[in-house]
């Protein structure tokens, strides 16, 4: 008997719903729900964790990320300009830097700064200095490529029109190219901020004093301090989502906006 397209769609939907129901039943029967609740969601045992997880942990995570991002943006701008320079040595240096730091795990930079700086140079860096500069060093490599792509995405005719009107090269760049590139790079820069927020947790390997603790450190320490299983880690995770989900929504909204008019 021949099935119409609509019949087939209905059967497919039925099969998917059946599988879902089966999985839900198996989970409900087999999983030890009270153990899960005790390990991951013992909110009532966390009394002293609030408000510190917000006022200290979340605050420090934001602080490290913002410092890393701001300096990453400065460094990234410099590297992007070097990358596009007519002086070849600048291009080689910038390319080498970018490839190097995009190619190694960020955690190596944290370790190098956290342990290596005092060994090599005898300087003792604060947690903010370590986290901020490690993030900035890595972020500037990624941001440089984002900015370069954005600048090069501005059509050549735009710069030609500006130069034909009599604008000097720097004026055409500042007035015509950069504002248009800015709209192009906002979504990828927002994504970079999300990655940095998560990467700020890498400071955990270096360790830090209580007042400088960020979300991951507080989540990990909470496991030992409170009788709440892994719940402190879950709370830390939700705190990250508090930061990353709005950024992610923001980036998606900007991507859907026409870059030309700024309107939907």
């Amino acid at each position, binding site marked *: 008997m021949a099935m119409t397209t609509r019949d087939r769609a209905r059967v497919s939907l039925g099969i998917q719903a059946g599988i879902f129901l089966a999985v839900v039943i198996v989970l409900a029967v087999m999983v030890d729900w009270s153990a899960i609740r005790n390990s991951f969601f013992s909110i009532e045992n966390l009394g002293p964790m609030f408000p510190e997880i917000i006022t200290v942990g979340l605050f420090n995570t934001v602080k490290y990320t913002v410092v890393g991002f701001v300096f990453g943006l400065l460094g990234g701008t410099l590297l992007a300009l070097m990358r596009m320079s007519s002086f070849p040595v600048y291009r080689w240096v910038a390319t080498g830097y970018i490839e190097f730091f995009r190619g190694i795990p960020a955690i190596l930079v944290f370790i190098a700064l956290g342990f290596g700086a005092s060994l090599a140079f005898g300087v003792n860096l604060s947690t903010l200095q370590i986290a901020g500069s490690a993030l900035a060093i890595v972020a500037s490599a990624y941001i440089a490529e984002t900015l370069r792509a954005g600048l090069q995405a501005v059509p050549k005719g735009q710069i030609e029109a500006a130069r034909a*009107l009599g604008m000097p090269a720097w004026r055409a760049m500042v007035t015509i190219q950069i*504002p248009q590139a800015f709209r192009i790079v906002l979504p990828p820069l927002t994504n970079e901020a999300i990655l940095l927020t998560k990467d700020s947790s890498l400071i955990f390997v270096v360790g830090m004093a209580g007042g400088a603790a960020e979300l991951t450190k507080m989540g990990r320490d909470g496991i030992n301090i409170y009788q709440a299983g892994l719940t402190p880690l879950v709370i830390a995770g939700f705190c990250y989502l508090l930061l990353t989900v709005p950024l992610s929504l923001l980036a998606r909204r900007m991507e859907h906006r026409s870059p030309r008019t700024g309107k939907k």
Partner: protein
Amino acid sequence: MSQNQTTDAATQGADQFQAAGAYSAAGVTISGLHKSFGDNEVLKGIDMEVAPGEVVCLIGASGSGKSTLLRCVNRLENPNAGTITVGEHEATHPDVNLDAMRRQIGMVFQQFNLFPHLSVLENCTITPRRVLGQSKAEAEAEALAQLDTVGLKHLSDRRPDQLSGGQQQRVAIARALTMKPQLMLFDEPTSALDPETVGDVLASMRKLAEAGMTMLVVTHEMGFAREVADRVVFMDQGLVVEEGPATEVIGSPQQPRTQDFLRRVLNPLAE
């Protein structure tokens, strides 16, 4: 949008452009111009003269080097050999102040190249303000006057992408005129337009010609060339093949290559 209204505004009152002859028009002299891209020699020795206030239409097949020639005049391309002078500026001199020279040469591109992040009015005021140091009020008054001559004053607060192609191109003309150029270069200004918007752009160009501007126009609009051009220059494969009054070059071409080109342009279905 009332198309009639803009058409009227665009065609009426040529006197709204500065009175004929009010432009301090500059002449152009090109001699022995060569330009290559790698091994590809695109201009093979061009000699050409455009008198102040003269309108010259440049015609020829695609790839014959018309755009490259135009772009050498304001040095968007660097010639390999030859000299170009525009008014008192020697465009090919090593010490030429390119920015100062370009301020006196307006250019209109096939793709308009309006600045999409700026309003129509800002497109017309940004260079006078940032480069000539005009005050906002001064630049806006001049920009509105120029937008009025192309019939688009009422759209001054729009964004370029809210305008039709023909309207964008007329804004591009007004934008160039706010710099008070002494020479205007047009590179196929109507080739990217919907047919119904071509007329308004040509009308604005005709008014500009009547106002005494020196114009070098690359175009396939033979009607415009016939009616407005003082002289027509036919180029083929990087060389000037034939030039003279429009009636002669278009009406009774002497060179076989010109005849062949015009037959194909005027009669695309014949073959």
